[in-house]
């Protein structure tokens, strides 16, 4: 919230620290039942987390097609954050395990494509873990900030 206020102020004033900093494009694919609810909880308990993430709610991480991730990078994402239920806690029995398999495989491929595997992260965040959501998102965004722009976007930036 603080950052958005600063951003609007930018229009009138000179460059601030915020503007000098690199703001990565982060796509977060989160499951409806656990991580999205945790994000909601983080919101209602007023925990601040970086404004750089763009959250996309899916029913289950098991429906994440690796193409979604590759497409995100092609369209200029600097990082893709995936949040699902803890193993065994999946609302759809085992969707999160399917996601883990796919993302494990995709990480190896990403390296071959020249994308640092750290740009793709998978975390288990339960519905009551608002603080965990905040921590993981913060850490991830910081990590991407240090890595810098991916430079992989071939289409228009998102």
């Amino acid at each position, binding site marked *: 919230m603080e950052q958005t206020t600063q951003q609007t102020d930018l229009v009138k004033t000179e460059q601030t620290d915020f503007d000098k900093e690199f703001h990565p494009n982060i796509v977060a694919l989160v499951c409806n039942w656990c991580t999205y609810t945790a994000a909601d*909880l983080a919101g209602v*308990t007023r925990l601040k987390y970086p404004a750089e993430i763009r959250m996309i709610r899916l029913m289950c991480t098991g429906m994440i097609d690796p193409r979604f991730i590759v497409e995100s990078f092609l369209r200029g994402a600097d990082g893709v954050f995936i949040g699902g239920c803890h193993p065994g*806690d999946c*609302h759809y029995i085992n*969707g999160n395990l399917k996601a883990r398999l796919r993302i494990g495989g995709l990480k190896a491929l990403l390296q071959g494509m020249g994308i640092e595997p750290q740009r793709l992260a998978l975390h288990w965040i339960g*519905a*009551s873990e608002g*603080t*965990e959501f905040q921590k993981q998102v913060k850490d991830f965004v910081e990590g991407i900030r240090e890595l810098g722009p991916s430079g992989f976007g071939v289409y228009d930036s998102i």
Partner: protein
Amino acid sequence: MSKPGRFVVAGAGISGVRASLDLAETGHEVVLLDTAPVSGGILLALDRQFPNDHCGMCRMLPMLDRDQSKYFCMRLGMFHKNVTFMPNTEIKEIGGGPGDLKVLLQSWSAKVDPDLCNGCGDCLEVCPVSLPDDLADSLSLRKAIFKPGPNTSPSTLAIDPDSCILCGKCKEVCQTGAITLGPDYEQTLEEKVTAVIMATGVEYFDPGDASMYGYGKYADVITSLAFERMLSSSGPTQGRILRPSDGAPAENIAWIQCVGSRNLRLGADHCSGACCMFALKQAGLSMEKGSRPTIFYMDMRTFGRDWQKYLDRASSSGLRLVRCRPHSLEARNGGGLMLSYSPVPGELIDEHFDLVVLSVGRAPGWKGPDFSDQDGVLVTGGSKRLLDISRSLVSASSVSFRAAMISGSPVQAEQGDSITSQRVKVKSKVLVVGGGPAGLSASLALAGQGISVVIVEKNDFLGGNVSQISDAEARERIRELVRDAEKNQDIEILLKSRPMEFSGTTGNFQTHVLDQQNKGPIIEHGAVILASGGSQSTLPASLVHPKVMTVFDLHRRLDDPEIKEKDLNCLVFIQCFETRTKEKNYCSRLCCPTALRSVEKIRSTHPESRIIFFYRDIMTPGDLEHLYTRARELGAIFIPYQTDIPPKLILEKEQVVVEGFDPYLGEEVKFKADLVGLGSGLGPGSGHELAELFGIRVDREGFLIEADPKWRPVDSGREGIFICGLARNPVSLDEAVDEGRAAAQRAMRLVYNPQARMSVSTARIRPALCSMCGLCWTVCPYFARYPGSKGAMEVDPLACQGCGACVAICPNHASVLEVQGD
């Protein structure tokens, strides 16, 4: 087609929520009330549950309306269009008769307007009153204005009227003007309802009252509820395990079981029924965070189906179990506590622990007027019996069905629904496999609601194997169930039959039932309830001897005049005989109570005979604890044994000798037994065959596995197939009847409306793109995919729950997930 009923459910804990959802799902209206400002009860404090350490609460939400409700998580609150939640309310009076009750409700002012409060928390900073937080069981402090649930949404604050001093500071800082501190007002409201369900829950023992183990004096002695909050990331320590005295990380943690329960001095002759598992869970989770746990226990009561395995897992990963009740505890310089205990006679050990957790017992908690005797008032949950979550759900579903029966036949769901207009035709007929107590109670419940039922029973009689394992009273109850079922015109009974072929989609199944001549009808039905039961385990051939029998046989034989007149000098019971071991790793629940009941019977005819019990853990949860106390009063001798040195049976022609080791005497003991009862347990019947036929999961021992052990206890993993009774887990007669009714409730939800609504998000196949590779078939966790006749895969619309796994796996983009109204 009748009018929907209207019900009041008192208590919005897990039982109340389940009962409300059940009624709401079948079209009834519910007023759910609680004296607290939020719904959820004890569950607000619990993050993860045994026996799988998962949260999973969302799984109990109705399949349809969860999509329409605003929130997807039960922790945020209770949302259903047919349920009105009334916080800060209690029942004052109930008048009238069943079917037409007049309930007087009294609400008190919330003082914070939920529509205006935005949960900013400015008032929390200015409130001058601090008091121990009930939710964290005094682990942390809260203000008189506080957030009643850690995760509730919207996060409206509430004022505790008992501690508020009306200073008005909160009102001054409130930016939205949500607070009104005027004089307390109480509002009364009369509701005309069909029935009232009381689910008022339990109260936890306060160890401070009896100044047990220095609770209240030493900061590092906390209750299990406080520890639960410590484990939670939304709790006061944000999931870190710390010593409350100095905030240092707690490594050595001790749990002391049975504090305030199983204690005759406190008048608590009952077992709380869940604390052993609760402590095991907490110990397991603390190990994940790097602590070293020790549990001091009396009997490790792992009486659920998977609970023994849970215990085994915990002990193999480093949990230490000590069987004894520690006698004293002292604070130590530099933090921590010194616990003194004596595990074997003559040995006193002092051990240092950073944190001591008291596993506090429970007792029914309702303090208001007792309405339970009134007609039309039904009681469920912890206020009736001390149950764990899954049993509470079963009991609540069973009671909600009984409540719905008062209102007469079921209602038709409204036809024109704005969001889910898509409907599927279903057959309103249910197939029940098994004519034992669970199957019969399910059938009678469904038939009572006008749904036709077909019972398939393999024997040539109804009633199942209950006669094997129960006493005369239980057999009479079963005969009554059988008579009712035989009289009922909606129930068709196929004896000496078995289901052979099963096909179709949810709501439209076809089952070919064959009799002994391999002939029989193909039954078209909407749902199936598997209640195939089980039987007592037979003894191995090496133990065939007239004086050796199972505890169930022995209990029945005690009625024989022959036995009554015979001299019985010594009877020996060996409990957990070849059960709770590697081969058969579950507790059968009924052997301990049955053997203990035998003691009373033996004493009435043979007051002088010796009664010896060799046992591992006596499993008498809840009020069954009386039996154990009574048996000890009657002079039965209890000798614990370990699995590595089990008591030995020496069979001779005329006599049986039992040899064992008594740890209290520290020496070998030998008994010449006139009768030996072996607690060899129960086992499921045709679990594996049924699981294969109906395509559901089964465990190694042959018990059918439910969709979720906690939240969906009678659903199989496949929609439309429900499981109950001994086929699912060892149960008593009462529990089997409850499970049957709970399964009927779940089946009812599916078939009561011939035009069933579809979930708002279901997968669809674009047939032109489908290449029938079958990947979606294998990946679907709900068996909602099958190869269709038109060269493309097809979706079972009622079974599909819209997870989208098929969308991600389909190489041709043929599978799409459609979410309506989003």
